[in-house]
């Protein structure tokens, strides 16, 4: 009888363990191949680039966007939202406008550093596209994935398409063991508590339908990088559909990034807040 009891426990454990270990590994093998044939001419993609002191990275990221978007043939525009960088980011943006045209590259600066959410609202006011793509300008997000986001969106008319570092061919560069452990641990805990229906919650490489993004921003209260997590959790709350594309995240080619105690505290606070309210 005792053996029977522990045998049952072991079976139960493995029943949960095995499917979860390799979960999601093959789910996205089709992404990137789909939807190429249906290229709707009226769709336009507004790419929002919030910047602060990105004078070195901005020309590179814009060059890459132009390279991959011209190749894909989709209609697009780049909107640079600079929060009064003292390093001359806006001069670089103006030079890029001369090179690529003021209808392709829009510069919509703000006077000082304000929140990320308001940057998106500010950018959206000037966006002429019906889709909004949000990415970081520091080269951690590669524009080569944008056409894959668009194809993924078209494949099932998703409301949101989110880039994910945690699934399939996605990954990171420049992270040590500690950083990976914190990231995976935090992700596991979040998946357990919130079941958000998306594997990467804190990433900010995403494509939204314009009206969906407007509604999500209005309903979000967090600041900083936790804001990204709230956006995707609210998306689930409003029953929006979320597609995912594996992305590679190359951490800060120039400059440095941090993950300290205060970030972890912020994250825990936001997690509990969303756990209790959504």
């Amino acid at each position, binding site marked *: 009888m005792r053996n029977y009891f522990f045998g049952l426990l072991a079976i139960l454990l493995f029943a949960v363990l095995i499917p979860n*270990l390799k979960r999601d590994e093959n789910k996205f093998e089709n992404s990137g191949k789909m939807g190429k044939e249906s290229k709707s001419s009226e769709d336009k993609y507004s790419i929002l680039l919030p910047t602060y002191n990105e004078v070195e990275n901005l020309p590179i990221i814009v060059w890459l966007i132009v390279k991959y978007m011209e190749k894909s043939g989709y209609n697009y525009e780049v909107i640079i939202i600079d929060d009064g960088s003292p390093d001359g980011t806006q001069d670089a943006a103006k030079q890029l406008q001369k090179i690529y045209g003021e209808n392709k590259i829009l510069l919509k600066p703000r006077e000082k550093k304000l929140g990320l959410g308001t940057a998106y609202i500010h950018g959206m006011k000037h966006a002429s596209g019906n889709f909004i793509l949000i990415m970081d300008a520091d080269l951690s997000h*590669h524009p080569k994935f944008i056409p894959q986001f668009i194809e993924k969106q078209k494949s099932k008319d998703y409301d949101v398409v989110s880039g994910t570092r945690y699934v399939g061919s996605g990954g990171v560069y420049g992270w040590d063991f500690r950083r990976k452990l914190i990231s995976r641990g935090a992700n596991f805990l979040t998946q357990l508590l919130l079941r958000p229906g998306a594997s990467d919650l804190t990433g900010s490489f995403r494509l939204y339908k314009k009206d969906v993004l407007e509604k999500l921003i209005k309903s979000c209260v967090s600041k900083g990088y936790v804001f990204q997590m709230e956006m995707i959790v609210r998306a689930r709350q409003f029953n929006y559909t979320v597609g995912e594309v594996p992305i590679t995240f190359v951490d800060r080619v120039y400059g440095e990034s941090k993950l300290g105690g205060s970030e972890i505290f912020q994250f825990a606070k936001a997690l509990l807040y969303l756990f209790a309210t959504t």
Partner: protein
Amino acid sequence: MTKLLEWVAVLGALGAVWLSLVTNTVEFGFVRQYPTAVFYSPVIFVGLFGIYAIIVVLYRVFTFNDCEKAAAELQEEIVEARADLAKLGFRFK
């Protein structure tokens, strides 16, 4: 229903079953045979789940892709971009 309420509801239901077993409100041969195992079953399950969580997280840490190729490609493209932009008349700072 918020996630918090979902958790409270499910844990409450499981707690009720456990309580009914340990207080012998519901009679079960198994319970009479192994009263200690039943009494400590919540702790056992939490412990097992903890082990499961550690295994999954560690597995995912060690299988986290290192995108060496993507990083190298990006470096090449940066060089290419700077050369092309300079040709187009961009003045780098």
